[in-house]
């Protein structure tokens, strides 16, 4: 069941990555641009926990690395860390309060952007931290957090469906 769940999740990630690259500019609201892949990785790890979150992060990161000119591996590493970190509390903690997934998505966006900018700076690119944070990172994090309540139930359903079948098999 886990393979099937990952198959579906990977398919969703691939569609999100392609949409993000193809229509990314069209999705911009003022200066905020949503990050569907990051949203899926965070919500998936929130639902499935650390282990699967790490794997989900690696898959999502690899897709982004292939569709971006940033140093290869930057997205993979940062999303793997995000998958691991947000999966720590798993669904139990997040069920306690509705705000926690939103905060997790917000912080994950800020972290992800910071890692990408650091890696760009490390290879000699010109990075304008203040303006990037003000014009892209913070608005993007708010946008992603606002989308989280829409994505979270869908991903939770995908994860829970697997659990049901596993439980029945036991």
């Amino acid at each position, binding site marked *: 069941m886990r393979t099937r769940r990952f198959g579906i999740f990977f398919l969703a990630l691939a569609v999100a990555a392609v949409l993000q690259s193809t229509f990314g500019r069209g999705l911009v609201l003022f200066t905020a641009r949503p990050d569907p892949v990051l949203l899926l990785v965070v919500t998936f790890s929130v639902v499935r926990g650390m282990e699967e979150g790490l794997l989900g992060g690696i898959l999502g990161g690899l897709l982004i690395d292939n569709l971006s000119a*940033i140093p290869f591996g930057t997205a993979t590493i940062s999303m793997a860390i995000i998958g691991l970190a947000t999966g720590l509390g798993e669904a139990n903690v997040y069920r306690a309060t509705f705000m926690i997934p939103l905060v997790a998505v917000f912080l994950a966006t800020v972290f992800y952007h910071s890692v990408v900018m650091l890696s760009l700076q490390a290879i000699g690119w*010109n990075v304008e931290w203040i303006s990037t944070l003000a014009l892209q990172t913070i608005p993007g994090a708010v946008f992603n957090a606002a989308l989280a309540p829409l994505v979270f139930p869908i991903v939770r359903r995908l994860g829970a469906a697997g659990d049901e079948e596993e439980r029945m098999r036991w």
Partner: protein
Amino acid sequence: MDRKPIPWWVSALAVVVALFFIVQPAARDRLTGAGSQALAPLSFFASNAAGGVAEFWHTLESIGTMRRTTELQKDEIDRLNFEIVRMQELEQENQDLRQLLGFKSTRPNLQLLPVRILGTDATGLIDTVIIDKGSTDGIREDMAVITWRGLAGRVIRVEPTTAFVLLVTDVSSSVAARTQDPNSRASGIVGGRKEGGLIMKDILQQELIQTGDTVITLGIGGSLPEGLPIGKVVRVQKRNIEMFQEAILEPAVDTTKLERLYAVLSDTKAN
């Protein structure tokens, strides 16, 4: 059940009456006239009813035909709409190619390869586009990518079938440039601004640069051809305490609406 036989006199009477009407035409005419008059309303009603029924069937048939016709017309309208959009697109492409032809006639030395945009940078943090041509098509790193309006960017990463182009509007982009004005020839480095537009930096204080000047590529230190338009000066920032002055430029190419791009495979003049 026994059927009661008709009495013989009834039959005889019918025969007599029939004979009477045969031999007396006037009486017969009166009878048929009266019959016609009596039946007229019935005939009228029946005829009307028959007409109504016929009309009803005809209407039903017409509805069916009309529905088929409407569907066909709807298909036709859709097809024509599609055709109009396609024609508009072709017209736009035609116009674009004419402009490019004009551009090309002024620069016959450039060997161009048309490329299409597949997508933008997935992170959204850098201003790059992915194009549909790669190393197998002759694309190399640092090649210029242009539109007929001017420089759009340069290739920064090449895969076998795709390549990444860093647009001039990215903050990390830096292009050696100068003003086109032969009396000025102020030179500097052009890069993108997060707030939008371009900025030309490192212009010496003594150089003359003013609003409206066209800025073009300098064509040194790389594979960018010389003389490609980059933008127009919209504001000059000059402070006497600083070593250099800066100029804000409006890009020649609107990088948010890129459609048809051309990779400069070679510049025979430069070679």
